[in-house]
């Protein structure tokens, strides 16, 4: 399993577009929003946590179809399926690799981009914490969506339609926790709810994703 993780990370780094594209997309979204809503610092600092969350979510979505698609096309997914590790383990490792390549860099970059949007001072901390807890759920849910659409020729748009509604609870609790924390209110309730979603996704979704992969490899 560790070998698979290392292989996936190497592929993501060397094939280009792993770390770079998601982050660049996140940067562009954060740059475009002030053009759209105007440069007033008050408005920007109020919507900053929400915009950063939506931006991170979209950047995460952008790289989802890479989780299984390339391996499916060149046949290595079939080899992995016959390997002695269970399919659920493969899904979990793939999701972990996706998180290390997109979720973690996004989390680290978000406080910096928050400065661009006039985020108030405790906000940097809160956006970092909420993304750190929430992005694993985004990667895991995304891996499930990618497993559903892996056999399709033009799965990209369908993947967004399937995955985005599943992201709604995570987004609501994450953005709510970040907004409350930035405003100096108690954010523990939404934070705990989001942590629950993350833990539940990691525990249960590998089974659903593995079932979908088995159907697609049949």
């Amino acid at each position: 399993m560790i070998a698979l993780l290392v292989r996936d990370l190497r592929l993501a780094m060397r094939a280009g577009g792993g770390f770079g594209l998601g982050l660049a997309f996140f940067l562009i979204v954060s740059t475009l929003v002030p053009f759209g809503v105007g440069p007033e610092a008050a408005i920007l600092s109020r919507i900053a946590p929400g915009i950063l969350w939506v931006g991170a979510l979209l950047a995460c979505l952008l790289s989802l179809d890479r989780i299984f698609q390339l391996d499916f096309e060149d046949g290595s997914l079939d080899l992995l399926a016959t390997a002695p590790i269970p399919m659920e383990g493969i899904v979990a490792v793939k999701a972990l690799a996706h998180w290390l390549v997109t979720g973690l860099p996004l989390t680290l970059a978000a406080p910096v981009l928050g400065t661009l949007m006039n985020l108030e001072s405790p906000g940097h901390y809160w956006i970092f914490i909420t993304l750190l807890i929430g992005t694993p759920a985004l990667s895991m849910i995304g891996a499930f969506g990618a497993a559903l659409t892996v056999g399709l020729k033009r799965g990209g748009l369908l993947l967004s339609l399937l995955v985005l509604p599943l992201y709604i609870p995570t987004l609501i609790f994450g953005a709510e926790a970040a907004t409350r924390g930035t405003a100096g209110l108690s954010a523990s309730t939404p934070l705990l709810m989001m942590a629950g979603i993350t833990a539940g996704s990691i525990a249960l979704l590998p089974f659903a994703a593995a079932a979908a992969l088995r159907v697609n490899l049949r």
Partner: protein
Amino acid sequence: MSLWEFANPVKFMALSGKVLPWVIGLCAVTLIPGMIWGFFFTPEAANFGNSVKIIYIHVPSAMMAINIWVMMLVTSLIWIVRRHHVSVRASKAAALIGVTMTVIALITGAIWGQPMWGTYWAWDPRLTSFLILFLFYLGYMALWAAIDNPDTAADLTSVLCIVGSVFAVLSRYAVNFWNQGLHQGASLSLDKEEHVSNVYYQPLLLCIAGFILLFVALVLIRTRTELRLVRLHRLDVRERMKDA
């Protein structure tokens, strides 16, 4: 003799063919008088005026929109566990009816909301939940449409339906947490005193029964069509095998 016998498509077709005219008849007997009673023979409500009468479409369609998803969840589970074709075909047949009910509930709600709340749309928890439910229906139907092999499509959409149900419930409570609502609390419970006045309640019950029967009739018709499509597909494949 058990319920599972009707998982046999031939038996299902025979039974549903016999039952269908009765269901359609009962539906007409409840829905048409219910609507006429509701629209023409109930008084105007104190603060609502005539707009209260949209309740006879709004409430039943909203109830059906949720219950149809629950039915799809049950039939998807049956397909995953026991692999009965009738079950998953019924699920596929129900999805389009469910999405139609969701749209009807949203549109009648908007029409009702304009005079009452002064807006067509607000980010009220129930409205938002219904919009999310609409998105789930769309995703489910899009996945059916995207996959060529019917058995693969049945498996994948069933998995999606089960996972989607969990997230739909989560979204419902997340949305409740996220914003306060304009809707009143529960006002139709059978065991409580505090439901709407009997003048509106009785025709409403009749309309709800009518909508349920309408759904049963439609889902039977569509499931029969789906089963015939499967059979056509199989015959087509057999025919081509013969030629080859």
